[in-house]
């Protein structure tokens, strides 16, 4: 099929071949070729996913788990087939452990509400890292408000890595019930040692909630070798559609938990006196689920499985090293997040230039980056900055696009007369 299987390194030709799967990458913006460097916000879909979703709508759509007719059966098979693909993709033991949600945010709300409501009480402690996305902060804050539990923060070091020494002290406290940490920080790019976090927590009987949104698109994830109690991720961060995500939870925990949302499909029988809940995973999937999105996500899994992900992961490491080196040529440059283990993402500030001005000028040069607080205000406070510019790469990005970014940034510093 291609050279990358037999060679130990991804060739530029192979990357160009992969790029041809992504129609949007051929676009121009302001008459410049698009350099899409906003993959941490959302990744692009390959035509294999787009065509699968289109075929589903064209030929197979109906509601799932309902009808006896042929189309309903086809839709159900495709939907449940996608669940099996996802189970396999993250190494879960059972289909009962794969809950389709609308995304990572929905998944964490489910855990905080359902597991948290039953297991967290007044004066209990929830540990949250300082580098969490708001999605892994706000649901816990809401739970703490409801129950009187307290939130404590696992600090981050100056390089943007997790303070593991402080973490090991924090979990010595008696009432710690949950540890909420992202696998990869969306604002800093740091890859956290989640295996260690989960192991240390497990030894203390503390539950772990890992936000995998930023990891799932960059490298293979195995929930069992990580040892997470809960692991959440979104489809659109792994080249699938928006509006779909997955909550992996250990079966014994999910069995104990009560439902989160009520409605059709999550019940076995309903009368006005008594309701019995459906079995896993349906107990947590009330109402008509995002069927086409799940089917699209299944196609994204097939697509990723067809690539050599280990090799592409190494390619992304090279891309990161190159980006870091080129960014350091920019006057007034300060990188935010320089941990030893990072995904291909660089957050930065340029002395005297507001990120929104950088973002607008870069857009004029065809370069799409994210500017602002990245839904991680505590990270900005930690580094005493109002906002950053973030260039986040995927396996389809090229060294030439990084040159395009660098040239555009040099125009910014020239315009704003920035000197070192």
């Amino acid at each position, binding site marked *: 099929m291609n050279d990358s299987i037999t060679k130990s390194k991804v060739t530029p030709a192979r990357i160009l071949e992969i790029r041809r799967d992504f129609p949007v990458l051929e676009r121009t913006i302001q*008459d410049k070729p698009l350099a899409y460097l906003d993959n941490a916000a959302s990744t692009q879909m390959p035509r294999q996913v787009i065509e699968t979703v289109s075929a589903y709508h064209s030929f197979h759509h109906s509601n799932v788990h309902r009808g006896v007719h042929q189309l309903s059966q086809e839709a159900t098979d495709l939907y449940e087939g996608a669940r099996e693909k996802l189970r396999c993709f993250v190494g879960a033991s059972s289909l009962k452990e794969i809950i389709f949600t609308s995304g990572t945010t929905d998944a964490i709300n489910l855990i905080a509400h359902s597991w948290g409501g039953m297991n967290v009480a007044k004066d209990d402690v929830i540990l949250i890292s300082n580098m969490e996305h708001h999605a892994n902060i706000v649901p816990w804050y809401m739970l703490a408000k409801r129950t009187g539990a307290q939130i404590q923060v696992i600090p981050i070091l100056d390089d943007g890595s997790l303070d593991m020494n402080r973490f090991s002290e924090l979990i010595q406290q008696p009432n710690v019930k949950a540890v909420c940490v992202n696998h990869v920080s969306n604002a800093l790019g740091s890859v956290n040692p989640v295996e260690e976090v989960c192991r240390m927590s497990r030894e203390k009987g503390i539950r772990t909630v890992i936000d995998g949104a930023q990891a799932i698109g960059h490298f293979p994830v195995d929930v069992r070798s990580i040892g997470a109690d809960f692991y959440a991720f979104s489809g659109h961060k792994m080249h699938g559609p928006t509006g779909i995500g997955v909550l992996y939870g250990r079966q014994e925990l999910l069995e104990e938990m009560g439902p989160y949302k009520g409605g059709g499909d999550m019940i076995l029988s309903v009368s006005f006196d008594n309701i019995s809940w459906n079995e896993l995973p349906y107990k947590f999937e009330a109402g008509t689920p995002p069927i086409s999105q799940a089917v699209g996500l299944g196609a994204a899994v097939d697509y990723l499985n067809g690539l050599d992900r280990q090799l592409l992961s190494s390619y992304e490491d090279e891309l990161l090293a190159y980006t870091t080196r080129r960014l350091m040529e920019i006057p007034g440059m300060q990188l935010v997040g320089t941990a030893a283990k990072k995904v291909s993402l660089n957050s930065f500030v340029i002395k005297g230039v507001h990120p929104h*001005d950088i973002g*607008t000028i870069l857009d*004029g040069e065809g370069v799409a980056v994210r500017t*602002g607080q990245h839904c991680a205000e505590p990270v900005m406070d930690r580094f005493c900055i109002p*906002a950053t510019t973030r260039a986040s790469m995927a396996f389809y990005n090229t060294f030439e696009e990084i040159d395009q970014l660098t040239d555009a940034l040099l125009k910014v510093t020239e315009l*704003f007369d920035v000197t070192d």
Partner: protein
Amino acid sequence: MLLTNRSKNLYQEVILDHNKSPRNYRAIEFPTHFAKGHNPLCGDKLDVYLIVDGEDVVQDVSFVGDGCAISKASASIMTTIVKGKSVDEAKELFTGFHEMATGKIEPSEDPKLRRLQVFAGVKDLPARVKCATLAWHTLDAALRNKQEISTE
């Protein structure tokens, strides 16, 4: 340096100059009017101070705050234009500026907007309109004796 036309239109020399050396960038100790502006979308914060005399004329106006070049230059230029104007004239300018920034009128349609037309380029950048109008919204709030406004 070859920038796209859109960026050149927006980041004109006068905007860059006001960004670098903002005019009337100070707090007024005893203002007659004051308001805090906030754009939660980008975190920009801006305080506007005014001294309005008995004849309803703006004797002094200043601002303090942090934000992007567009919002800073807009605040700076606003203070230089509003000083010496009547409160009614200032409110009219706010309306005119707002309509220009949102593309409802062309700057050439209103001679009073001549010095503000450097900001006309934001109409093509919906995400940046609020950067340009934050100072004016805050001024308007201060003149209406509203102490805090948010552009959301």
